[in-house]
């Protein structure tokens, strides 16, 4: 067991929220066509509230703090917040579009010992990137921001969210990242808006292109063997009643700019608000959070008997957004199908009397693979 796995297991056993994503704002200087947020400010936490929350998170044992938005650099108090977080010895990761980063900011981020900065980049082609962000000139400024951070000694990650508009550009973005000495991650899923509106889901690429990306071994890294494996078969019943669907609400959670606490950024089931209650009270005693924690794979409708069993990456948040946190996430069923060519139990049930779906790409044999692992199938950017 690696040190990281050991830490995760210990946090799980002790009920420690090891990792928290804190969104400082939903405001943004871009208007990305696939964004799941409402960019109006409905009463963000003040500087004092956020600093106090950071004290509470540190006391609760949070180690990994992902600071995100919205665009975090629209908050004038951003560096006050990062400085306080680093003083509290969090491992801090920032998520940004990089547009507002200049040399002085890059150097300051480096000096603060920020672990990494994740920057959203949609294409190697300026016109395509700017069309997705709806901000003219954003490509140039984003790449420049990444370069300044890299030159200052900060670890930078390009997060390449793919959709119909840019799915064919990922190889070139990957090459640009390699040329700049920047880590590359691809996110192949457009998820519904936090308010449940599913309109943007239509931006997802077609199954054929998704399957091709899911079989690109340059993206799979050391996870290739697992991701390209044939379906694992149904989860054994005794295991299904012990296995947790994911870490959301168990060792991780999300706090919105308004203080609302959720199991995860893509699981918009409110479990409390830090303006009304201490974080630790929400973490330990929220009935909603305990409801999420009580769910085991064996409770999931159709999933425990599905042929994809433990090889499925079902997201409980997406399932919740589809109407039932104990139900299937059809978006994940579709990905399991794209990956293996084998329809899941719930995908077949959904399609009912229709013909069995045809595999877009047949399951491939394992190949010799690079060590890097740039695939994050569903991370919110």
């Amino acid at each position, binding site marked *: 067991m690696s040190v990281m796995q050991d830490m995760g297991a*210990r946090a799980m056993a002790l009920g420690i929220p*090891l990792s928290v994503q804190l969104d400082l704002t939903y405001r943004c200087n871009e208007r990305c066509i696939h964004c799941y947020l409402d960019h109006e400010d409905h009463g963000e936490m003040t500087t004092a509230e956020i600093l106090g929350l950071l004290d509470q998170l540190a006391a609760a*044992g949070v*180690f990994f703090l992902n600071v995100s938005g919205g665009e975090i650099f629209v908050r004038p108090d951003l560096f006050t917040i990062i400085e306080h977080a680093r003083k509290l010895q969090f491992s801090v990761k920032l998520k940004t579009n990089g547009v507002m980063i200049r040399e002085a900011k890059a150097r300051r981020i480096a000096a603060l*010992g*920020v*672990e*990494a900065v994740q920057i959203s980049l949609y294409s190697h082609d300026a016109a395509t990137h700017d069309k997705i962000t709806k901000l003219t000139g954003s490509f140039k400024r984003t790449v420049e921001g990444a370069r300044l951070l890299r030159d200052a000694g900060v670890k930078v990650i390009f997060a390449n969210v793919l959709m119909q508009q840019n799915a064919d550009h990922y190889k070139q973005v990957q090459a640009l990242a390699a040329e700049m000495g920047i880590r590359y991650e691809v996110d192949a899923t457009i998820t519904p808006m936090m308010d449940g509106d599913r309109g943007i889901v239509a931006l997802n690429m077609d199954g054929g292109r998704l399957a091709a990306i899911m079989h690109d071994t340059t993206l799979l890294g050391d996870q290739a063997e697992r991701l390209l494996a044939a379906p694992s078969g149904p989860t054994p019943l005794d295991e299904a009643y012990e296995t947790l669907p994911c870490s959301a609400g168990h060792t991780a959670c999300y706090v919105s700019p308004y203080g609302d606490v959720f199991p995860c950024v893509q699981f918009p089931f409110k479990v409390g608000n830090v303006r009304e209650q201490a974080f630790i009270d929400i973490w330990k005693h929220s009935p909603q959070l305990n409801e999420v924690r009580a769910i085991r794979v064996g409770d999931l409708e159709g999933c425990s008997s599905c042929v994809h069993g433990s090889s499925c990456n079902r997201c409980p948040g997406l399932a919740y957004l589809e109407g039932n946190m104990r139900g299937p996430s059809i978006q994940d069923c579709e990905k399991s199908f794209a990956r293996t060519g084998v329809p899941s139990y719930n995908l077949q049930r959904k399609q009912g009397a229709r013909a069995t779906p045809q595999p877009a790409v047949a399951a491939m044999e394992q190949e010799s693979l690079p060590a890097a692992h740039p695939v994050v199938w569903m991370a919110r950017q």
Partner: protein
Amino acid sequence: MSTPLFLLRSDNVAARRIGDELMIMFARDSSLFSLNETAALLWDAADGRTPLAEIVARELCPRYDVDAATALRDATELALGLAERGILQVGERPFADAGDAA
């Protein structure tokens, strides 16, 4: 009498206690270390101003029922090992920039 040693926590790492172990992570390469209880005690006490001998007498001897000379020898070895990895700084004088480390 040997030269006193002073320890100062590195400020370019992330650190958190998870149960009885202390996790340390370096931003520069994301390397992760798990410190046992003894090393964690040294980390907590490494304010840059308190001599190691005093830390040993105050924190380690009562806890581990060990004589001061043995404890100091072991703690010095441990502190130097942590310093080699960049987790602590070790010096023969108090650290001037130790104002916020206490």
